[in-house]
């Protein structure tokens, strides 16, 4: 599992926010996207494909490819790369069949 790195120098992030990803608490900051929060928490798999059940993650990071879609607060097909986090957000990747 590889963790993305938050660059601390030169920028101060927004206030601290908590979301859950597949039931686990994830520390994030206001202004971050769901994808950024997940990557920084070491969660690179954003979904599993419906047919082959193969892992997929962030690819274009600009809302074009739809590879990083997750289920957010019960609503499916949300692009994690363009959607900002909100306090208490509940995110599922489909890892456990959700």
């Amino acid at each position, binding site marked *: 599992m590889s963790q993305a790195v938050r660059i601390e120098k030169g*920028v*101060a992030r927004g206030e601290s926010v908590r979301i859950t990803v597949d039931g686990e608490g994830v520390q994030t900051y206001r202004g971050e996207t769901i994808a950024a929060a997940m990557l920084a928490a070491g969660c*690179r798999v954003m979904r599993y494909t419906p047919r082959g059940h193969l892992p997929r993650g*962030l*690819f274009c990071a600009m809302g074009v490819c739809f590879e990083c879609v997750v289920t957010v607060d019960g609503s499916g097909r949300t692009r994690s790369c363009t959607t900002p986090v909100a306090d208490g957000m509940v995110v599922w990747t489909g890892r456990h069949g959700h």
Partner: protein
Amino acid sequence: MVTERAELVVVGAGPAGLMAAIEAARAGVDVAVVDENRRPGGQIFRQLPDDFVVMDGARLGTEFRNGRQLLGELAGLTIRFLLGSVVWGSFEDRVLEVVNDDRGFRLESEVIVFATGAHDRPVPLPGWTLPGVLSVGGAQTLLKSQRILAGRRFLMAGTGPLQLVVTSQLANAGAEIVAVAEAVPMQALLRHVWPLIQGWRLTRDGIAYRWNLLRARVPWIAPSILVRVEGNEEVERATIATVDANWRPIPGTERTFKVDTVCVGYGLVPSVELLRLCGCALRYDETVEAWLPERDEWFETRKQGIYAVGDGAGIAGAAVATEEGRVAGLAVAARLGRISDAELRAAVSVPRRRLHRLGAFRAAMDAIYRVGPGLHELALPDTVVCRCEEVQLLDVQAAIEDGAVTLGQVKAWTRAGMGSCQGRMCSVPIAHLIARQTGGTVEGAGVHSALVPARPVAIRTLLADSQATRG
């Protein structure tokens, strides 16, 4: 459904769109700018979220500063920004269908300027769907707009200026870059010395980036391309190979690196879906391997009142995009009677001179970094070609074997191109497969028919609108 109106609607708030909006608004045109992102700037001038506070702008690089400067020009102008808004369709001339979060509305205008930008050229190869493989533009977006490094150990694989810039930015931000696999050898630049001198400011930037990587001792391996990525659940290894002049791997030259992140960047493809949806004529350009809108000297498409500027109309970078936007914005102001023809001619002389100078540089870049045929031959039979619908190379080959000769036929027979991305990821590679297997041309494989919605829209949003209209 709610209808909003503006004299000029600009789609896309990158450098091209913003400059068109600024010039038109300065002349007194009523302008609305629509963009999918929540902040203006587009991909190149991606700004940090409002919640982030910049302590040291110098660390964020020249693009950040240029972006701030361009956004500064908006001060004092009345331009309506419809951000976080997605254009998903158009059913009448110069009327766009838009959704903003859960609210749908129609946007009517006299003139539309499309400045929709570009996305990285998708290249199917074994392992390209593994988490940890990102487009180079994606890695840059994460860095610029979120200040996040996508991983720890990077392999960069691609070609051209964008890869150079992003590698340099990642290295400066502290990423470990194990190697850069550049498909084009340095000697190729020597054949185009004069245009490189003509575009000296850009050439100088390129040299500075390259020098930066030399100082950071980042291994630069050219000419080589990425041939496969491997790993269980995510990236663990990536393999590159030396290539010949046609970008075909030379046997026995493979090198494997242990990495957790691979950035792939073999050029950009203009996002022309909305132009097609609006009925603008396109032509296939062999050199840049992309469909581009036909435009006149004012960047108006063949469809009256619809303009196309910036990378969404032909990959040329931010400097060209800015000047094209300026010319189109002024042309719109003249068209709507806010400036005279004489004023228009005077105002465009400087931008046109700049475009002429940048044009020579651009043509040299296109020639130097022209994609070789080997890039389209990397997929193996079980490689996924259509990411959305999980269609493999062998499925597509079977369809072509059975007689499919167009993208539309392959889509109907295999579902490739039917998913959420609307074929943005698979249409380019499949067109090449058809051309190769049938002995035809990429142009002959055609394009996916332009369908609504251009981006997924929730049915509940459309239902809510129709009920509101009826109620």
